[in-house]
């Protein structure tokens, strides 16, 4: 008989709830005579809410930080990351419900379970304490996203889906190779155990470093860091906008969550060796993302490049391998999630029925035509550009501060100068909205509900900008990785 260890499933309750909700959604779609959008939405949101509740309940959990035979890390970091992802998913679902309702695609019932499963993968990855769990979670979220990306009638979506899949699978192989190398180096894939082995010099340095390299490549792909970013613009542009919003915001949080664990736990003993890699990748991301965004004429594509740049900023924070860096990165991720959701939400509302109006030109005169949308968009763009008093400003100060504290001021210099370049293309949209006349007739989506949903990111953008301590106070605790 195989003796199974004591089951403490409490720490993975959120994932279990999500998986359950996903299966229920699937069943609803399959068994209900006429599955309704409202039904799906209610079910999915309830699942998210329950998962969130379960996560919050984990906040004060004491006891062994590593549970389930070393597979899961039950710390505050995971709680915060989960909550962010769940919130993003909720907004993403709201967007999606509206989007598929509007586009007249036969009710995409699969959207809801897929988002729930993807969310589960994302929350799981941030809590993973074993590299193989990380890998599995990574695959869960990736496979869901490949499908979600193709979840549209448009040819672009299919193309994006294929590109995403091929490159994603390619990068998965690298990631897995990294896991293998880590195993080879230390004889284990438990994230804390790897660290212990490396700190105790019992592992092989060479293999460990190689493992780090491969894992960094895999994560680099997921977080869209240069030069592993090239799928990003195509996929962001091709995917249905709600999926883009969800993917852009949540994947980044999830992937960075896992990356932070890997870097700051597993490979913490090798920090001196990996910091330069992150440094260079951060610099490249910031520069390439900012510069290439300038030449774009499609808003989604532009935001995709901007997301590359933001990945670079977060990495900038991570060059400091301590609590400062983690806290800064977490805050940045929260801020980024908020503003990305917000901006893609506006993009969705502007883009009319399908995705006809995602070109920059369709933003001309938006300030006149739809002052509310334009105002919100301006707010999100300013936040993305890092102008106070928005969340983006505090976020940038945080990551730059962390990097400077670690002595990486040249990187920060690159970062701030790239922000200036980046400001240019954010401003360009604002120029279009407020300083130019509308060009021709535009289709307009006047739905109220998604607009109301936008109030959440808008409010958060300001609140995080003016009273960041609310969140930072929480992050002070969450940025301590217990292992």
């Amino acid at each position, binding site marked *: 008989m195989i003796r199974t260890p004591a089951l403490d499933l409490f720490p993975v309750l959120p994932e279990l709830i999500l998986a359950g909700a996903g299966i229920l959604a699937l069943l609803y779609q399959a068994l209900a005579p006429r599955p309704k959008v409202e039904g799906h939405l209610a079910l999915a949101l309830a699942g998210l809410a329950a998962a969130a509740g379960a996560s919050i309940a984990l906040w004060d959990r004491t006891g062994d930080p590593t549970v389930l035979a070393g597979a899961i890390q039950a710390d505050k970091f995971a709680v915060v990351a989960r909550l962010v992802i769940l919130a993003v998913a909720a907004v993403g679902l709201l967007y999606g419900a509206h989007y598929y309702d509007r586009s007249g695609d036969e009710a995409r019932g699969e959207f809801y379970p897929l988002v729930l499963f993807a969310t589960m993968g994302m929350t799981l990855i941030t809590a993973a304490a074993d590299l193989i769990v990380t890998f599995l979670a990574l695959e869960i979220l990736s496979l869901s996203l490949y499908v979600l990306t193709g979840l549209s009638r448009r040819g672009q979506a299919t193309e994006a889906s294929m590109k995403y899949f091929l*490159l994603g699978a390619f990068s998965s192989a690298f990631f897995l190779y990294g896991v293998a190398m880590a195993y080879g180096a230390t004889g284990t894939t438990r994230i804390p155990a790897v660290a212990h082995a490396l700190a105790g010099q019992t592992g092989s340095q060479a293999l460990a*470093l*190689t493992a780090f390299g*491969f894992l960094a*490549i895999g994560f680099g792909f997921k977080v869209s860091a240069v030069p592993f970013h*090239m799928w990003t613009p*195509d996929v962001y542009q091709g995917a249905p906008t709600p999926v883009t919003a969800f993917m852009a915001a949540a994947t980044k949080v999830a992937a960075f969550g896992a990356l932070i664990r890997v870097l700051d736990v597993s490979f913490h003993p090798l920090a001196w060796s990996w910091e330069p890699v992150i440094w260079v990748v951060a610099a490249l991301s910031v520069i390439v993302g900012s510069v290439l965004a*300038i*030449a*774009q004429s499609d808003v989604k594509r532009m935001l995709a490049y901007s997301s590359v740049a933001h990945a670079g900023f977060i990495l900038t924070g991570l060059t400091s391998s301590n609590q400062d860096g983690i806290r800064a990165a977490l805050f940045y991720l929260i801020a980024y999630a908020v503003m990305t959701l917000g901006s893609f939400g506006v993009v969705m509302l502007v883009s009319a029925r399908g995705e006809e109006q995602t070109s920059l030109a369709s933003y001309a005169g938006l300030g006149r035509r739809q002052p509310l949308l334009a105002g919100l968009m301006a707010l999100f763009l300013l936040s993305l550009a890092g102008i106070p008093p928005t969340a983006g400003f505090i976020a940038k100060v945080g990551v730059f501060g962390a990097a400077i504290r670690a002595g990486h001021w040249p990187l920060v210099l690159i970062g701030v100068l790239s922000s200036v370049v980046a400001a240019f293309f954010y401003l360009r949209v604002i120029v279009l909205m407020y300083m130019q006349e509308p060009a021709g007739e535009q289709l307009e989506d006047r739905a109220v509900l998604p607009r109301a949903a936008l109030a959440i990111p808008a409010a958060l953008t300001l609140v995080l900008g003016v009273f960041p301590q609310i969140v930072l106070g929480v992050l002070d605790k969450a940025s301590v990785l217990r292992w």
Partner: protein
Amino acid sequence: MSAAGLSAPPDSFALVWLVPALPLAGAAINLFVGKRLGRWAGWLASALLAGSFVISLAILSHLLGLTADSRLFVQHLFDWVTVGSFRAAADLRIDPLSVTMILVVTGVGTLIHVYAIGYMDGDPRYGRFFAYLNLFAFFMLVLVLAENYLLLYVGWEGVGLCSYLLIGFWFERKSAADAAKKAFITTRVGDTAMMVGLALIVVHVGTLDFSSVLGSDAGLTKGAATAISLLLFAGAIGKSAQVPLHVWLPDAMEGPTPVSALIHAATMVTAGVYLVVRSHALFELSGTALTVVLVIGLVTAIYAATAALAQDDIKRVLAYSTVSQLGYMFVAAGMRAYAAAMFMLVAHAFYKALLFLGAGSVIHGMHDEQDMKEMGGLRRRMPLTATVMIVGALSLAGVIPLAGYFAKDTILEIASTSGRTLVYVLGTAGALLSAAYIGRLIFLTFFGEERSEHARAAHESPAIMTTPLLVLAAGAAVGGVLATGVEGKLPTFLEPVVGVFAEGGAGLAKGALVAIALVVTATGLLVTWFLYGSGRVDWLAVRVRVAPLHRFLQRAWYVDDAYAAVVGTPAKAAAAFTAYVVDARVVDGAVNGVGILVRRLANAGRRVQTGFVRNYALAFLLGAVAILLYVGVRF
């Protein structure tokens, strides 16, 4: 303002602040409600200035009642600039020099105000004119009453402002607007040097108060004194239209004639002389500076006199004459004969104001014709004007016993007795030229045949204009009583300020000097009579025959043209180069260049994003290999 004044002893000195304040009030009133006052604006302005004159007289009498040594009073109005150790207050100074000046300014000024009531009658901006005139008087009085250089500078620039406003009073005419601008800017060149001079004073002495700077314990070195003096003198050159900054004054004749009389003859232009006299301690300490003053004055005196010879515009003759006469004052100052300079200043104020106002009367009568070629024989049409102008002319030419004679004769005498033979000779030559150009003016204007319709239709001016003329003529005639030679009344009065002139002994005998002066004057007048008054010479034909020379003189030795070529054109080109090449192309070009560069980079980067998924994978692998290479190096 008045608080400080009231705390002073209850005599007329305490009222000194009213001297500038009255015209200031007039300016304010006329500026804001002048239109409503109508003709009363002029009367109000004149009355207020007359009030100042009365107070000035009271102050004079009070001053005369004091012993020579105690003739100094400083009224503190308020602290103006106090920064660190540097302090400059709004203090007014009463001493013989400033009292002399305020008497001239308020006295002659009042007369000119009254004259202007008639002259400006019917002008649409009548009220504003008097506002400006009053404002001018205010600044001029501040200038001469100031107890420190900074306050003096306020007046100095203020009169420049008013000069600008008044020259450009008829701004619809482009020439007037141009002249106004030219006047302000040209004088500002000198003013700037003066400002640097003030800075230098502060650096060396720490204060700008006359009592400290000019006192014996200022502790200036000879070099510093030279630098300061020359910088101050540069200001004087600008304001008093000396070579090489004289070019603005002839053009300034675009202003209404009372303005020319008040500002460009009697008062403002003499501020330079006042400055030199006031600062004589510095100049004397330097020595070199005095020589410069002397040379500049001498050159100007002769140069301007030659130019005056060839002008056709009656006011331009007088303008060049003023420049020349101011040169004489600087010559005097340069010879340390400050009292002589001051006397010439006073006398000149009378006869030149008289000449200008007379010319104004002529112009008025000629329906705004200023060209002497169009005049002639006006003595019949406007006898009173002719009479007083001839008095003024004779005074200027230096005919005994008119005021002008004493003024000029004193200076030449000093030149001779102090052994400055060259100065004496050139000064005498200048006197000859003076007699000639003023004679030419008189003969062309008042004698001979009427040469135009206007001349034939000319008429005498109203009493409001002629009355001041008469007063001034009296002054020009008998002003000599103030000063006969170095021991006259005015020199004695000024002695506490400027000291006694104590050089001499050498040179020609008094009788010889008088004789030479008479001969010279007579020659000048006679020659011009022969040429222009006798009717025997076709002067227009002569002019054609000596055209190049005439042109040379008429254009005042082409100085203006030279300036335009040497300063104006290159400066404009340099400015254009800076703006359109340096600023737009280089500096801004660099800025936009960065923008373009980033954009190009972006477009190049876009091309990398080909859409080929295999390219993406290649980039991916490139990154992967690079990272692995790095970690490979690390182990």
